[in-house]
């Protein structure tokens, strides 16, 4: 298999050792373009640093996550909607179960370099979004999760860096990841977007990646972010379309729904990137209502 480098190869080999039937899917996701291969290898090396001696555990989590996605895809194709529509249901069935969450988070981490759409989004974030952010910008990521995007931001941005999450467990994982990767100090805080804004903090750059689809009211989230951004600040919003998962609540049915949501929240859209699931063209993904990752870069209007 034409992996991007030794680190990427190590992750791919570990997955194939446990799950040889996954070879075709992995092969289809192999990056071919030089810059993507370079970034894939860099992120793979970071992931290996994060997993340490627990690569096999992460592989098990990845396999669990793929089985979960298949389950949810079957349900989605039968019903036309995501299984759950409220945060309370997801909290009860997913977030409050540590055994589920560990596997899920482990799987999500590996998927960043194993799924073509995730790789594409990473490349867009690094090569299109971050260069557009001023180096001294006050930068915030909402829901930093595995910490990779904050780590990537810390490599180029020299202003203040912050990460907010509603989950203390998730923030701990982010903090551990950033320490492991040698990031400069990043202000990680247990903050809910909808808390009253009483500290006057304002940001020049805000990232909300793979969060909106987990919310009952993504429009309120964008409105809350708008209030915390300076006029002219940049927003990077990444949300998937037709992408069933056990904790996805809000169904975006087309890339245009994601773009329109951002535009209607007080932002001027500057660029977009749509990445269909592994092995698909965008045209086929649209026609068959398969998953498409959608990234929107937009500027806060005054």
């Amino acid at each position, binding site marked *: 298999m034409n992996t991007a480098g030794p680190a990427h190869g190590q992750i791919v080999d570990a997955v194939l050792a446990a799950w040889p*039937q996954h070879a*075709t*899917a992995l092969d*289809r996701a192999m990056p071919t373009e030089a810059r993507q291969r370079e970034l894939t290898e860099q992120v793979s090396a970071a992931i290996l640093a994060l997993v340490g001696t627990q690569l096999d555990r992460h592989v098990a989590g990845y396999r669990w996550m*793929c*089985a979960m996605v*298949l*389950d949810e*895809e*079957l349900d989605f*194709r*039968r019903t036309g909607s995501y299984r759950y529509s409220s945060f309370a249901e997801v909290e009860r069935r997913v977030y409050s179960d540590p055994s589920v969450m560990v596997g899920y988070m482990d799987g999500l981490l590996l998927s960043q370099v194993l799924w073509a759409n995730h790789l594409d989004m990473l490349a867009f974030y690094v090569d299109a979004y971050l260069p557009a952010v001023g180096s001294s910008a006050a930068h915030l990521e909402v829901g930093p999760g595995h910490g990779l995007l904050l780590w990537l931001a810390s490599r180029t941005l020299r202003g203040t860096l912050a990460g907010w999450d509603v989950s203390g467990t998730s923030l701990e994982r982010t903090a551990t990841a950033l320490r492991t990767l040698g990031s400069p100090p990043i202000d990680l805080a247990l903050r809910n977007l909808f808390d009253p804004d009483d500290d006057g903090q304002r940001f020049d750059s805000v990232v909300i990646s793979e969060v909106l689809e987990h919310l009952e009211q993504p429009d309120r989230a964008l409105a809350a972010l708008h209030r915390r951004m300076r006029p002219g600040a940049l927003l990077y919003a990444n949300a998937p379309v037709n992408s069933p998962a056990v904790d996805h609540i809000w169904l975006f049915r087309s890339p245009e729904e994601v773009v329109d949501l951002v535009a209607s929240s007080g932002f001027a859209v500057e660029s977009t990137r749509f990445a269909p*699931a*592994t*092995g*698909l063209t965008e045209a*086929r993904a649209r026609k*068959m209502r*398969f*998953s498409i990752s959608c990234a929107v870069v937009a500027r806060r209007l005054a």
Partner: protein
Amino acid sequence: MLAEMQEVFRSVFEADDLTISRETTARDVEGWDSLSHVTLLVSLEQRFGIRFKSSEVSDLKNVGELLDVVARERSRSATSAAKP
């Protein structure tokens, strides 16, 4: 049942001249990837009046194994329907 399944395959993959056998694998059918696989499964569910468990359809080797699962589920559905 293979002939009925072939009709479903032709519809899902939009290939009127597609011919399948028990030995047919995903590599033999253009466009048969993990996501079209899901569409195929749901189409088979609708055609045969069955419901798959994801665990029994995630690592199938060929059409023959899929056919066996359909036959098993169809028999299970018929047995459930026949119970008073």
